[in-house]
């Protein structure tokens, strides 16, 4: 069983934070098919959040095919997410570091680089969502 955390300063809707935490737990292998998610009542008792929010998060996860609600029993993981490949992580860390060095050599400061990264990140994931 995992325990949800809440970041109230992030500007990310509560239900999305719950969805993201299940994704992360699946990627890290903390959750596997057959594992049960906390019931809405348990999450409510722990975080003092709206039960509708928990149910909304679980509905989203169900729509993704990651969990299934079994009436009277709870919500269970039915599919795992591929774990991130450690070799790929190392490779991209390398190329990102090279990119940062060349940006720095071109005279860009940390803030410029962060702004570029943020815009590129946004563009990239906006494409994915569209």
């Amino acid at each position, binding site marked *: 069983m995992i325990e949800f955390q809440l970041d*109230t300063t992030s500007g990310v*809707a*509560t239900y*999305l934070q719950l969805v993201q935490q299940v994704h992360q737990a699946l990627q890290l292998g903390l959750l596997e098919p057959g594992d049960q998610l906390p019931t809405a009542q348990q999450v409510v008792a722990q975080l*003092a959040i*709206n039960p*509708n929010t928990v149910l*909304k998060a679980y509905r989203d996860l169900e729509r993704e095919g990651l969990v299934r609600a079994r009436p009277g029993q709870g919500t269970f993981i039915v599919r795992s997410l591929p774990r991130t490949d450690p070799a790929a992580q190392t490779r991209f860390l390398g190329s990102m570091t090279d990119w940062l060095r060349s940006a720095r050599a071109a005279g860009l400061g940390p803030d410029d680089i962060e702004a570029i990264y943020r815009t590129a990140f946004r563009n990239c994931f906006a494409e994915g969502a569209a």
Partner: protein
Amino acid sequence: MSFVMEATGLGKQYGRRWALRDCTLAIPAGRVVGLVGPNGAGKTTLLHLAVGLLTPTSGSIGVLGANPADGPVQLRRVGFVAQDTPVYARLTVAQHLRMGAWLNPSWDTEMADGRIEQLGLDLRQRAGMLSGGQRAQLALTLAVAKVPECLILDEPLASLDPLARREFLRSLMEIVAAQRISVVLTSHLIADLERVCDYLVVLVASRVQVAGEVSELLSSHHRLSGPRRDARSLPANQEVIEESHTDKQSTFLVRTSDPVHDPAWTVRPVTLDDLVIAYMSRQAAPERDYRPQLQVMS
């Protein structure tokens, strides 16, 4: 869609002063609704009209599809906790429960006694001797043990310390989970509302400034900052809620359902707190509204 509260042109006048004037709103049922706004916006008056403690001077209000002053049946459907969670100081906790059972035909003794026990309240204690948090919990117990369809709470958190606030909200959310009840509450504590509310209404001077699903409000509002530019140069699908400028930089809080692509902007998410403050200040500075200038051109 069914509504827990629906008002049309609702007004309440005291002498020459309007406490609420021409208020029109529709709040969906089955939600936990946060009603926020500056002091004097008319929130308490609206709630008192909703529970039948006041009668409207003008307009109409419906609660769960019926007139609030429709008699005992309607009263039974609505649980209300007034500001400062009033209880009878000289009565004991047990006497409050007896009174609740005596006055409410639908009283759920098991639930009421269970909650008091779970909270660890001493039945022989006089309510006047309880802490603020305990008093609020007692008032909440009285309101929910009559098993209403909706619960209306006016500033239930105002006098509570952070721990008591969290405990109160936890209780409230456990009730929502168990009973599928509609809740409308007012508060200035937006961070707390963000935890518990799935629907938000911002009321300023009797007018609804913005209303909607909390998750949808958060995902459709962004803070943009970048090189100075005029609000009129923003795309038509970005509604400017708040703007501020220096000689070089502009910052806008915009509402848009589409992604922001302009690479000149740094885009940041907004918290519910930012959003509420932006809509509250919007009313305070109507002269900053730029739209009339557009019409002059023709």
